[in-house]
């Protein structure tokens, strides 16, 4: 019986292992976007208008990433926020691209900065293709003490010949240098010199082989007089090696000073990004009256009180939550650009959704799609803080777009 239970137990373990391998291979091709807790994905950063283009390039060609983001005003209190320190980053598998430029509101992002919660920032990045392959390229906002907050991504295909890759830059001393190989000669030469010195000292002692057992026995025999084992030849060798070592260190230092007379220390520090008012913000105010997620129907229902402060009628066209876009097809036509673009093209339904100019109205919104489950947003009910946040996009009669962030407690409906 015991043996049978052991066999069954081991068999189950092997089966589980094989199954998990099968599941893992079908999904391990992007950046684990679904792995982060649902509430964090909703309440960290609202990314929108993200464009990554072109999606087919060759080595040395550039891709451009543009868009906007809003650090959520519902940022979880237990996490350090971008108001402390943050860095605009990009999610690619290592240096498959190099980053030529990144800016937020026009300010270069080579350093870290901080961002105010609830404010809209425009960003742009230029990357240059370096390695051939197919990569999922993401925007990322890295937040100190919290980690990366991943934004939308797109598949980019890079072709061509990797050997053609070039990355030259001009220094302030007037030299054009290739960053792929710059300084390598120094590294190889000096590392080889020191390897040689170290091996020479090692070989000096190895030539006395056998050294372990005889010396062990001799030390035990001589006791306090064991230092007599060190010969005058050994002392001379040590003095020579020490002298050459100190000389080479000094020589190397002054040689480098002569060759590179102008140097600066590594640069660090934060830059300030001034907030620029976005024309789409603060034009429509929204208050969440009720928010429920109906689990059987995969339907997120919102009751909203909308105050239209513009001089045109507006209606809700897009609800973006955790980078998933639910689209009201009566207002907008949006199709996914690739298999990983998180768009529910007909996922948004609004009851009596037209709001007159300068009017306030209650509307009922339904965001319904299987994406709630496939992107594990339903796991919000397992979070210790059942609150959501998302971005609403209203469209006016004149074609203008207005965005506003909403959030608040969410109740699950199980029946």
């Amino acid at each position, binding site marked *: 019986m015991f043996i049978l239970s052991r066999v069954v137990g081991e068999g189950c373990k092997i089966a589980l292992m094989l199954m998990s391998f099968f599941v893992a291979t079908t999904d391990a091709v992007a950046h684990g976007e679904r792995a982060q807790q649902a509430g964090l994905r909703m309440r960290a950063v609202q990314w929108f208008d993200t464009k990554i283009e072109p999606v087919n390039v060759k080595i040395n060609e550039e891709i451009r990433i543009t868009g906007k983001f809003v650090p959520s005003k519902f940022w979880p209190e237990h996490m350090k926020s971008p108001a402390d320190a943050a860095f605009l980053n990009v999610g690619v598998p290592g*240096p498959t691209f190099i980053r030529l430029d990144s800016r937020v509101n026009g300010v270069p992002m080579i350093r870290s900065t901080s961002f105010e919660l609830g404010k809209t920032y425009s960003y742009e990045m230029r990357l240059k293709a370096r390695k051939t392959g197919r990569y999922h390229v993401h925007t990322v906002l890295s937040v100190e003490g919290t980690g990366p907050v991943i934004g939308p991504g797109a598949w980019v295909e890079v072709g061509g010949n990797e050997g053609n890759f070039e990355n030259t830059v001009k220094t302030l001393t007037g030299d054009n240098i290739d960053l792929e190989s710059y300084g390598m000669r120094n590294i190889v030469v000096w590392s080889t010199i020191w390897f040689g010195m170290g091996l020479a000292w090692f070989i000096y002692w190895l030539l006395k082989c056998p050294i372990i057992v005889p010396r062990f026995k001799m030390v035990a025999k001589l006791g306090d007089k064991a230092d007599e084992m060190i010969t005058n030849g050994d002392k001379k060798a040590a003095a020579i090696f020490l002298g050459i070592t100190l000389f080479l260190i000094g020589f190397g230092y002054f040689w480098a000073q002569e060759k590179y007379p102008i140097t600066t220390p590594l640069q660090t520090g934060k830059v300030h990004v001034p907030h620029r008012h976005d024309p789409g913000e603060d034009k429509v105010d929204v208050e969440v009256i009720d928010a429920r997620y109906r689990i059987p129907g995969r339907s997120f229902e919102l009751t909203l009180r909308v105050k239209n402060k513009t001089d045109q009628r507006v209606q809700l066209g897009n609800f973006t939550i955790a980078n998933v876009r639910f689209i009201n097809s009566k207002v907008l036509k949006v199709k996914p650009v690739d298999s990983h673009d998180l768009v529910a093209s007909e996922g948004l339904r609004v009851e009596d959704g037209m709001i007159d100019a300068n009017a306030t109205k209650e509307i009922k919104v339904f965001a319904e799609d299987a994406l709630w489950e496939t992107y594990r947003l339903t796991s919000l009910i397992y979070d210790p803080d059942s609150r959501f946040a998302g971005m609403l996009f209203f469209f006016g009669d004149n074609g203008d777009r207005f965005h506003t962030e909403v959030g608040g407690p969410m109740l699950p409906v199980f029946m």
Partner: protein
Amino acid sequence: MTSEKELIDREDLTAVMTLDQQRSVFKNIDLMVIPLIVLLFAGIFSFHFALTVGDWDYWVDWRDRRWWPLVTPLSLIVLPSVFGYLLWTRLRLPLAGTVSIISLALAAWVSRVMNFEVFAGFPLNMVSPSTFIALGLILDCVLLLTRSFFFTGFFGAFLFALLIYPLNWPLMAPFRVPVEYNGILVTVADLMGYEYIRTAMPEYVRIIEHSTLRTFGEAVTPLTAVFAGFLGILSYFFWTWIGHVASKAVWIKRIF
């Protein structure tokens, strides 16, 4: 002189009969043990170095003037001190510094080429290891010349920590050349860190001169070097004592 047949017939059987045979056995022991020791050093030291120094030596844009010349020698001196005590007191061999650091260097180069360059795709000039073999040589030579742990600590360990920056300046200087990038002054190293994307390493993660010692102006490097030197002395004495405690092997005697 006893004949070989008579030797074999003797009651106290032993495999080693002559001095030549004994020498041959001892050589074989060296042949087996020394490469194992080198491998062992490479493994232990790489692990220890990764956990203590880690990124400070992995990337060219992490080697600042304050933390890299302080953390690195204090981490490096551990194995040379511990094993230096063992090798000197048991074998009178001043080799621990050099051999342990050569082992580390070999393992580091293999790792940087295979992991960082071939697998991850970073240019080798961005991830090459610094050189530390000279420091091990200094420690070993001072130990042999003084035959004293005290003076080795006082002079050897002081130089060990003091000289790490000038030793590596020929490797680092090209990467400290200034560049103007999008209106901001950066070094070549900063620029490489920015351009060659590391998604898990945003700029604020770099610990570059975090402290108030900036009030010393340009004297940051020599000040840090001297401070590291003094800490190196204490560190050497402490780890040599650990070597002394470890070499007693009291627990082996208790087993047998």
